[in-house]
């Protein structure tokens, strides 16, 4: 019996080691493509040049290119990708909805409206033509983020209320709520654009495309702190999420306070989405696609799904942004459009598979 027993444990340990390897490989790929992304552009730099520059040994041209332009852009891709994807994975779990993500539930659009309101009414976005890669700057990022968070949370709250009081709404039904909210906030944003002046209009429109180049170091630090705190909270609750995968009743019977976990998790998710949206604009579908790819590879175990989704989100955004910068260079394609091309087919696939209410789409 003990032999059989230790065989079971060995088998399971091997299975866990495989998940750790996937996590490690995703991390290495993310680092590799981050360096690759810093090497491509009008000024080509070798990996050695990049490493030297990062170590403080670069020449002036490399220093300017890396520290001023490419590093903040790559860091923005890493942080925003990780934020949207980990938020997507958690939303899919706590709402028991495989189609959930910040963009499909209208949270991003709510945040976008809030941010636009912040730009027009409180802070003001200006076109900064001196620096091509950071064409749009937001004068007062905190008020814009706050407004984005407030309106992102309005969407979140409506989604939570509807999912609680209309339990038979189903995954696709909840996404229809997201569609309604997106239209509502989209309409609000259009009205703001209609009544604002040309400069601010340009700012809002350009910014709603999603642009990783608009983030500066100050914003990246805010994003890093928010992301770190949220990931710590998510990881502390990884066993609760695992339990919630088996349904609310089972989770409760395992000692999980499902209501408070859902409310706090969704608040963190809207905070992350709001910060992402207010700093780099709307980037759709990453929060949907990255967790689903990783569910296929590491399963629904949140011990591994959360970190691997975050890494996969970063990797996806780095790839999409690098592709967008290099395919028709020197024109930079808006990253929001590229992620939508990637995400929409996946979304439709999940929608068709939705009848089975199955996360991995099997």
């Amino acid at each position, binding site marked *: *019996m003990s032999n*059989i*027993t*230790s065989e*079971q*444990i060995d*088998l*399971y340990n091997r*299975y866990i080691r495989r998940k750790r390897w996937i996590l490690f490989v995703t991390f290495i790929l993310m680092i590799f493509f981050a360096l690759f992304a810093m090497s491509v552009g009008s000024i080509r730099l070798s990996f050695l040049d990049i490493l030297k520059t990062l170590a403080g040994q670069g020449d002036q041209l490399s220093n300017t290119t890396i520290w001023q332009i490419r590093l903040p852009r790559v860091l923005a891709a890493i942080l925003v990708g990780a934020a949207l994807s980990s938020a997507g994975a958690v939303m899919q779990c706590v709402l*028991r909805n495989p189609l959930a993500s910040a963009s499909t539930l209208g949270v991003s659009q709510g945040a976008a409206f809030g941010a636009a309101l912040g730009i027009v009414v409180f802070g003001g976005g200006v076109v900064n033509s001196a620096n091509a890669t950071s064409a749009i700057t937001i004068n007062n990022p905190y008020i814009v983020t706050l407004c984005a968070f407030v309106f992102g949370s309005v969407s979140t709250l409506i989604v939570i209320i509807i999912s609680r009081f209309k339990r038979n709404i189903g995954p696709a039904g909840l996404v229809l709520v997201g569609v309604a909210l997106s239209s509502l906030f989209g309409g609000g944003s259009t009205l703001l654009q209609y009544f604002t002046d040309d400069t601010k209009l340009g700012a809002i429109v350009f910014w709603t495309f999603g642009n990783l180049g608009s983030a500066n170091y100050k914003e990246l630090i805010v994003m890093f702190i928010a992301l770190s705190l949220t990931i710590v909270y998510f990881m502390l609750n990884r*066993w*609760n999420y*695992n*339990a919630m*995968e*088996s*349904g609310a*009743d*089972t989770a*409760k*019977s*395992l*000692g*999980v*306070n499902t209501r408070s976990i859902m409310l706090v998790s969704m608040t963190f998710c809207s905070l992350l989405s709001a910060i992402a949206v207010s700093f780099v604009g709307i980037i759709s579908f990453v929060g949907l696609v990255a967790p689903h790819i990783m*569910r296929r590879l590491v*399963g*629904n*175990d949140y*011990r591994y799904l959360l970190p691997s989704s975050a890494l996969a989100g970063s990797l996806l955004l780095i790839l999409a942004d690098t592709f967008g910068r290099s395919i028709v260079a020197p024109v930079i394609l808006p990253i929001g459009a590229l992620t939508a091309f990637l995400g929409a087919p996946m979304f439709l696939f999940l929608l068709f598979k939705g009848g089975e*209410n*199955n*996360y*991995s789409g*099997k």
Partner: protein
Amino acid sequence: MSTNVLEDVSFTIEPGQCLAVLGNNGVGKSTLLKCINRICSIQAGSIYIDGKDAYKMKNKILAQNVAYVSQKSENSNMTVFDTILLGRKPYIDWDITAEDRQIVSDLIDQMGLNEYTLRDVSTLSGGEAQIVMLARALAQQPKVLLLDEPTSNLDLRNQHEVLKIIRNLAETNEICVALVIHDLNLAIQYCDRFLLLKDANVYSNGGIETITSESIGSVYGIEVEIIEHKNKKLIISNNY
């Protein structure tokens, strides 16, 4: 306007006993089970587990004492090992320990699930999946095991298989088992106490002697005949 699902319900279960909760659909059998481990909450009264008030226990402590298997388990696409490991959730502080892995592994062995260790639970048959859910509940090392219709989706062989396991577990591990079941013949074969619910109240509560054609007739609203076969009661419906 709200109505009370259950009123004036009072009963005890001793360790090693198997209590069948019986009654018509909608009478509140599942709700009763859910009230015991606070999935639903009671408006008045109290529930004691091993002398301690269940409604004053921390979630984690309650889950270490009471395990529950719901009527329909949601498809979580997890492996058998991971699903049973979830039963250790009330004991996990930061991460699982070697002891947790050992308990899960022993349960896999005990329940005859060895060849399915890394199989996705959703790919198993109804009977096998039900045994996995039982194993998950047992990983909680509970004093009380609540089972909501554990045999409802199983074929005849698996119904007996699962109930035999439950019966043995109750006796060997000194667990109090309360199960909701619709098949009265299965109930009288495997359970030793019977709680009959009618109109939100307890109709009768006791041993096999409480199962009579009158009590069943009154609770279910049908005529039945109870015959003895090999010293065991057998319930036959006259409504045909």
